[in-house]
């Protein structure tokens, strides 16, 4: 009841909303700061490794068709590839009926990196999820159109898998053809900005793309492990980047400290008025922390909304691997609550030590 009453009073005074909004923006700042630093981190490692990449970089590298030539002769078994992709947190789909692959198409019309699944049958999408696929589209017709534009001719017959020339497309693309390189290049032309990800299917199908991906991952990945162990520069850069990340987070937290300090300083007069009318120190402390807690909860809700909106509607992260992380935001909020509580101790103490009269004069 006390909390609800405080909430109502605070809402009436509009302070709650303002403070919560400021706190929520700070959470977002911290969240994005840590994200940004992790991007810097990845990029720098990418550069220093001299083409010896971690699994996620390998995948990123691979999905760029310009790099396709590098992988022509490699081999890998399915489980090893799955393991690598799992480490890279990248979804890979191994179809189980490649022979009828045109009936088991995956198609993603998405500008985000998050895969979306469409259910389909006989090449026609029956049911789509989250508008990332368009029901009623015959994939074969669509693809024919694209390959015609790109000037590459392929047979997309019902036994395409058997003929080894089957292709499905968009930001998740499965290709089973000896001319995969050309297909990739043509798809890249027609799919524009859409990211492309390779799907591997039944391991019984012997095709060049599957082989080349596997080898690339296996050999290069283990080479990365080797380099990681041997190269002291790698450790130095890693440490440097970790420092940068910590600095960014500290900057964010400092802003929280500043906000919570000013929040209390701003209330010196209010505190003095309450004391002048008999409120004891413990009442004031209890009240401030109660409000702080309510603000943090509000801030939590707002920051989840803000982060979700940024994630959902903004294109700024298209080129980055950003995921909406509820857990990360919760960690940020918990951090903010802790920091706010700890850092507000001194200002509260000062406010309570101040003479009532000088507080009233502010």
């Amino acid at each position, binding site marked *: 009841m006390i909390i609800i009453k405080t909430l109502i009073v605070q809402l009436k*005074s509009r302070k709650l909303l303002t403070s919560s909004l400021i706190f929520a923006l700070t959470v977002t700042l911290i969240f994005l700061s840590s994200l940004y630093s992790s991007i810097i981190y990845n990029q720098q490692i990418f550069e220093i490794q001299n083409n010896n990449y971690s699994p996620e970089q390998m995948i990123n590298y691979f999905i760029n068709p310009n790099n396709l030539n590098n992988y022509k002769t490699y081999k890998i078994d399915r489980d090893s590839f799955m393991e690598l992709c799992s480490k890279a947190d990248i979804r890979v789909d191994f179809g189980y009926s490649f022979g009828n692959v045109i009936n088991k198409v995956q198609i993603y019309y998405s500008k985000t990196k998050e895969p979306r699944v469409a259910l389909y049958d006989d090449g026609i999408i029956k049911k789509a999820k989250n508008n990332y696929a368009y029901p009623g589209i015959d994939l074969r017709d669509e693809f024919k159109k694209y390959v015609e534009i790109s000037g590459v001719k392929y047979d997309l017959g019902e036994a395409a898998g058997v003929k080894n020339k089957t292709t499905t497309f968009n930001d998740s693309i499965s290709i089973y053809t000896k001319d995969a390189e050309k297909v990739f290049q043509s798809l890249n032309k027609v799919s524009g900005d859409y990211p492309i990800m390779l799907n591997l299917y039944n391991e019984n199908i012997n095709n060049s793309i599957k082989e080349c991906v596997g080898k690339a991952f296996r050999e290069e990945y283990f080479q990365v492990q080797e380099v990681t162990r041997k190269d002291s520069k790698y450790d130095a850069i890693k440490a440097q980047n970790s420092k940068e990340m910590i600095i960014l987070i500290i900057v964010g937290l400092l802003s929280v400290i500043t906000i919570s300090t000013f929040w209390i300083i701003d209330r010196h007069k209010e505190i003095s008025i309450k004391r002048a*009318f008999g409120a004891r120190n413990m009442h004031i402390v209890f009240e401030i922390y109660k409000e702080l807690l309510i603000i943090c909860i509000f801030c939590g809700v707002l920051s989840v909304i803000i982060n979700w909106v940024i994630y959902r509607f903004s294109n700024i992260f298209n080129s980055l691997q950003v995921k909406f992380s509820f857990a990360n935001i919760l960690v940020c909020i918990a951090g903010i609550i802790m920091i706010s509580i700890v850092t507000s101790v001194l200002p509260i103490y000062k406010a309570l030590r101040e003479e009532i009269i000088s507080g009233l004069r502010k």
Partner: protein
Amino acid sequence: MSIINLVDVRKVFSDGECYIDVLKNINLTIGKGELLAIVGPSGSGKSTLMNLLGFMDKPTSGRYLLEEKDTSKFNDIQYAKLRTQKVSFIFQEYNLLDDYTVYDNVELPLLHRRMRKKEKKELILSTLKKLGIEHKIDTKAAKLSGGEKQRVAIARALVTGCDILLADEPTGALDQERGKDIMDLLQILNKEGKTIIVVTHDPNIAARCKRTIRIVDGVIYED
């Protein structure tokens, strides 16, 4: 019967190097139900005396007897209790919480009292009615006129049921007419039995009080 008794009260302010004797051996007795004006030039120590009387500050030396109990050795918690049960303040600049409504402002001294919500609400309403501002109950303090603000401040002081009201320049921020209204109100309250101590510069206000003391350089010059 005396309600307040100050015996050799001194108040010294220091900034580490300089010591300023703001109040020098003040001896003052105030009877129950008095309407007392404290007058004097700026810097004479009248506000400091008021703060001591209102338990918002402690004397450097001397004794402060309230209803014959020596409060000089009281701790902060006991002082806080006195501020809510024995004396109440009316300030020149009202000191209302602008973002709060009239009701919330008047409720302030009752927040930490064990009272039923209904009982509390009735008390606040009757106090506001007495001061003629019950229609402003849901208005934010920031939207009130000066006179209304001072009435809310008086309501806040009255709602505690304290016998002693300390008013520091209660009409200082008001025009003459509204100032007169407030003084009328204080006189009515005095007639109802409240002990009222008013700090003022205004000789007209002082003239309306039953007793006037003049402070000059921290000493009671005239009583």
